[in-house]
């Protein structure tokens, strides 16, 4: 006899399928691979995925010193948007956003991508002018964007304090409706499961310590568990890339900084969008389960300690409570720090290196998560063809010498 249960309203996430017993294999590393990807975070896994999917390259190893997607992938605030100012940035982030929009089907795995829109608040006349400029730049690049006034902000996110008597009143905001959040763990697991099914080796708990070279070619990586040969090598190690390239005599203009985030206890749904403010510096979304997820800027000093200064959190909370008075009684559940690699022009460094089969991907600063599928797609193309994909050509290392910088600092509501 079958028992029927009545349809009950469910919270997002409650309909997820049970996880299978395993999502990926844990193979013993082979002696050689066509492609070795250093770093098993979102970027490394996505690169492996598109190597398989678009280029039929499956003899691939992704080497991770900790556990898969356990570094910055597990330490970010999962915001996805493409409302950057400069054409080059908009192009790569919009490419990524379009891939996000089809990623659940592509991976055949739930990633809880929720396009709830992002408001980037303006608090001064100059903010308003910069914001309107960015909206027009976005429209010219085919990215959805609009300017909304303070009443519009209130309509989209009723809990924002839009009164005019606060220290930094909300004068309006840019709004990108297609922006959203995704469940970071599921994104990592979805990619890992997919590439593992295709035969890619995911090698965890193995640290790459250096490289094997032959003239101007890299022929393998040294790890704490032995050497592994490689036809090509891609570095997708986020905050730790410069320590790796140093062993090859390649300098990258990167400074690693701690970036902190925190979550509140679980609350019922109160926050329907994402709200970011550069001026008072806080950004907030509400996770699927109900935590308020908040971030601010990086600590000013260099650091690798995966923790940061308390005063950064203090200022961020002060800003949050002024913008969202109802947060005043919310309890902080936990905070954490990740290490982000920041470049002088606040744009990533992706592409070729002086070694002809070594590919660089670093310097995403605070913006790497949203780029995950887009970067994977174009880096896989670059590795498979040996030529930089047109979307990442502007982000080559040589831009610091030839002066063609993509200076996104402060231009696109970036947080570093």
């Amino acid at each position, binding site marked *: 006899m079958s028992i029927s249960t009545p349809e009950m309203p469910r919270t997002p996430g409650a309909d997820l399928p049970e996880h299978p017993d395993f999502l990926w294999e844990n193979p013993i590393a082979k002696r050689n691979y066509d492609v070795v990807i250093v770093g098993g975070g979102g970027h490394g896994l996505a690169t492996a995925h598109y190597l398989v999917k678009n280029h039929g390259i499956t003899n691939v190893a992704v080497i991770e010193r900790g556990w898969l997607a356990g570094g910055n992938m597990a330490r970010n605030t999962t915001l996805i948007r493409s409302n950057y100012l400069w054409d080059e940035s908009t192009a790569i982030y919009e490419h990524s956003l379009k891939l996000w929009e089809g990623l659940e089907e592509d991976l055949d795995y739930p990633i809880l991508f929720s396009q709830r829109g992002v408001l980037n608040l303006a608090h001064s006349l100059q903010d308003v002018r910069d914001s309107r400029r960015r909206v027009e730049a976005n429209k010219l690049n085919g990215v959805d964007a609009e300017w909304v006034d303070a009443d519009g902000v209130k309509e989209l996110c009723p809990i924002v304090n839009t009164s005019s008597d606060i220290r930094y009143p909300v004068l309006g905001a840019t709004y990108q409706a297609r922006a959203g959040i995704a469940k970071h763990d599921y994104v990592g697991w979805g990619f890992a499961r997919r590439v593992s099914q295709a035969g890619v080796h995911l090698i965890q708990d193995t640290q790459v310590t250096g490289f094997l070279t032959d003239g101007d070619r890299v022929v393998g990586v040294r790890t704490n568990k032995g050497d592994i040969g490689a036809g090509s090598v891609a570095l997708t190690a986020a905050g730790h890339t410069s*320590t790796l390239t140093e062993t090859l005599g390649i300098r990258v203009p990167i400074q690693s900084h701690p970036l902190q985030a925190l979550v509140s206890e679980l609350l019922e749904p109160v926050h329907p969008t994402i709200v970011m403010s550069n001026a008072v510096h806080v950004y907030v979304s509400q996770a699927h389960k109900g935590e308020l997820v908040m971030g601010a800027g990086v600590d*000013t*000093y260099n*650091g690798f300690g995966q923790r940061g200064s308390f*005063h950064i959190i203090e200022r961020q909370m002060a800003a949050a409570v002024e913008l969202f008075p109802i947060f005043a009684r919310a309890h902080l559940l936990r905070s954490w720090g990740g290490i982000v690699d920041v470049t*002088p022009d606040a744009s990533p460094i992706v592409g070729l290196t002086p070694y002809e089969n070594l590919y660089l991907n670093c310097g995403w600063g605070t913006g790497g998560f949203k780029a995950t599928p887009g970067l994977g797609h174009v880096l896989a193309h670059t590795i498979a063809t040996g030529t930089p994909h047109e979307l990442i050509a502007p982000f080559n290392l040589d831009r*610091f010498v*030839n*002066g063609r910088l993509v200076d996104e600092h402060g231009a696109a509501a970036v947080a570093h």
Partner: protein
Amino acid sequence: MQLIECPRCGPREEIDFTYGGQAHIAYPEKPAELSDEAWAHYIFFRDNPQGPFAERWVHSAGCRRWFNALRDTGTYKFLAVYELNEKAPVIP
């Protein structure tokens, strides 16, 4: 919040200070003769070690003077503070 030892004012809270990046970056002796690459390295490229790092700080909410510090970027601990014209101390 950690205390930072200002050489002139003594220990003060971290929030009193501003970070100035890597120390001991000298202006090029013959700037007119520098290649584009050398200029790029002077302007944009800095060391990024995990461990002791010689860097500049200014006590902006105090004496407003610059000094150098040797700080461990893994633990964030200040190993030494010293004057701008001094060499970085060697920590055993």
